[in-house]
């Protein structure tokens, strides 16, 4: 396989074995980004000097016989909502244009400690609000499988870069599906860990009770490797869970015998025929390998969309109040403090951020709180109880990640159309569960389809184990995007 598509595990192994150097890996990646990314549009900032310097340190450490981390020399791209010391971080928004963060996010520290090399920052919907990366204030990111289609979102730069071989792995964030949906659209693996499993310290906040950082990779094994590096307690995030982290790579036993997969009927009502067929193939493959399948119901599924689109904007309106032109980011000049803030925010935020800020402000207004935010949090309890009950009958819930394969640019004409694209991924965040999207085939038109697995809280290991079996049985194998960034 060409070097661009080496897995994270293979890259680290080769660097450690001296078959290549971290500098050579980085140089090859930088050359490929220069050749392809003008058309693909995944990167917002490439840190060539920083990546070469870091790679040089890894090579020097190896030469000195120092121990290397499990991600030694692995080139990684970070969604641009993860703050990076000395490297511009925009969250896809003009309001942070030019801001150079003075510190690294916790997950960035953890990746570097594991030996990873940060190549740069990749595109996303503004403040992670969107499902197509069309809401980025900076550039269009294309789907490597079909450049006329979106890469998904909000972690669309991550999914496109991983699929096109412009990094070995990427970190994204998932608030309502923003890792899993773009992973499905671009034919890669995307995992949202349990809420609290990975620290949010240094993540530009969108909806704090839903946000979680996770890996996008070309294989389930790499997802396990990257999750291992970033998971764990961090006192700087008050919602971080102080619980043991299992050995994720060891969970990939290849064995699903006796594992019970629940198929929630509410998720199989409306989807494209090709998605339905792909799901049936995945289910059949699991049964063939000794898994059990049970039909079940998650009766409050229909409430996830309204609950999510009240809670997320409400929290966003509060989180985004900090962008006021005072301490960082851009400032629009005006005579008074109020006018300066209002102009800064008007000029700095794009249409979707404004919509959600206003929606959230409305929902949190005096007299409306009980009818909207509190009611939505009660619905969230009902949704969580559905899952609690379901996991008495199964170990893993299997659904499609999205009702359709990647859609074309501009296809979602209204905000509500776009919101409906997330219908299968929202409940996982509302309930705080871990979820993973694994490729499970291509449409006739050659677009990837994703299968979503949802697990019990903190049971990422079982999702990785089941996901690897689906990957081996009905995944994409060595098929790569034929268009931009492909081997062709």
């Amino acid at each position, binding site marked *: 396989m060409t070097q661009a598509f080496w897995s994270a595990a293979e890259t680290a192994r080769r660097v450690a074995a001296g078959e290549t150097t971290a500098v050579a890996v980085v140089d090859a990646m930088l050359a490929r980004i220069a050749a392809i990314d003008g058309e693909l549009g995944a990167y917002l900032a490439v840190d060539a000097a920083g990546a070469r310097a870091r790679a040089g340190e890894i090579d020097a450490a190896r030469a000195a016989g120092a121990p290397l981390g499990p991600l030694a020399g692995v080139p990684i791209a970070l969604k641009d909502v993860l703050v990076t010391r000395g490297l511009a971080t925009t969250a896809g928004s003009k309001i942070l244009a030019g801001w150079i963060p*003075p510190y690294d996010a916790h997950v960035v520290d953890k990746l570097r400690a594991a030996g990873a090399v940060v190549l740069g920052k990749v595109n996303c919907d503004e403040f992670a609000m969107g499902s197509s990366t069309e809401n980025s204030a900076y550039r269009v990111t294309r789907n490597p499988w079909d450049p006329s289609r979106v890469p998904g979102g909000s972690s669309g730069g991550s999914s496109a870069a991983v699929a096109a071989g412009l990094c070995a792995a990427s970190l994204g964030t998932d608030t309502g599906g923003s890792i899993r949906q773009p992973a499905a659209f671009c034919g890669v693996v995307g995992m949202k860990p349990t809420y*609290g499993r990975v620290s949010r310290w240094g993540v530009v906040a969108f909806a704090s*009770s839903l946000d979680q950082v996770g890996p996008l990779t070309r294989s389930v094994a790499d997802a396990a490797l990257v999750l291992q590096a970033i998971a764990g307690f961090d006192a700087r995030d008050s919602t971080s869970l102080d619980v043991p982290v299992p050995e994720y790579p060891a969970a990939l036993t290849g064995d699903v015998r006796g594992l019970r997969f629940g198929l929630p009927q509410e998720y199989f009502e409306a989807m494209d025929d090709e998605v339905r067929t792909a799901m049936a193939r995945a289910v059949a493959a699991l049964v063939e390998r000794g898994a059990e399948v049970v039909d079940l119901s998650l009766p409050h599924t229909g409430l996830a969309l309204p*609950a999510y689109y009240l809670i997320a904007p409400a929290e966003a309106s509060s989180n985004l109040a900090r962008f006021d032109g005072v301490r960082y980011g851009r400032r629009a*000049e005006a005579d008074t403090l109020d006018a*300066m803030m209002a102009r800064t925010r008007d000029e700095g935020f794009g249409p979707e951020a404004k919509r959600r800020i206003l929606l959230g402000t409305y929902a949190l207004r005096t007299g409306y709180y009980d009818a909207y935010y509190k009611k939505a949090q009660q619905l969230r309890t009902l949704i969580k109880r559905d899952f609690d009950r379901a996991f008495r009958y199964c170990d893993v819930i299997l659904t499609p990640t999205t009702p359709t394969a990647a859609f074309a640019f501009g296809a979602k004409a209204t905000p509500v159309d776009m919101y409906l694209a997330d219908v299968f991924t929202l409940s996982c965040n509302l309930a*705080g569960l871990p979820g993973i999207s694994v490729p499970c085939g291509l449409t006739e038109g050659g677009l990837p389809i994703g299968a979503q697995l949802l697990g019990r809280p903190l049971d990422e290991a079982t999702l990785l184990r089941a996901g690897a079996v689906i990957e081996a049985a009905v995944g994409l194998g060595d098929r790569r995007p034929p268009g931009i960034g492909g081997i062709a």
Partner: protein
Amino acid sequence: MALTRKEVEEIALLARLSLAPEELDRLQGELGAILSHFEAISAVDTDGVPAMTHAVPMDLRLRPDVAQPSMDPQTALSGAPRRDGDLFVVPSSIAPPARAGAGAEPARSAPAAAVAPPVGASSPVALAAGTPSPAAVAPRVDAPVVVAPAPAAAATVAPAVAAPAAPAPAQTDGVPEPVSTKVVTAPSAAPPPPKGRTP
């Protein structure tokens, strides 16, 4: 569910978004359409259902009330659009007079308004960024706002950390400070002393 134009204007004001009339028109329609999708939730019986506050049950952690190292002021201020020493500089909260003739009485509105945070925002001046420079702030705390004749943009220097107000200098004669393009003020109410600071 239809939103009135007035409601959209009100929430835009609360959210500190200065929107153009066309934008308000468009958002009025869009927000109404989105909210209409949420009407179904009012029919759901949630009597006795607790609101979910955490996805995974956990106890809030407490740590010993001991000062810990944090970002130094220069680093914290490194992204400030405007600064002066250890201070974030922001425009005055009071609009400069349209015309300031010779001998005009300077504006004397309450200086506290100069640092009022936007609704829902953390205070623009209270984020830890180190100790304010006493030389820059202390002598003028609680002084009347001083407006320069026809300033292009009168500026207010606000302390980066809400520190206890220093004793105000005597200002009994009502004579304003010498003309300056920089106005220094501070919150009128002395905030509680910050906790956990090293002596």
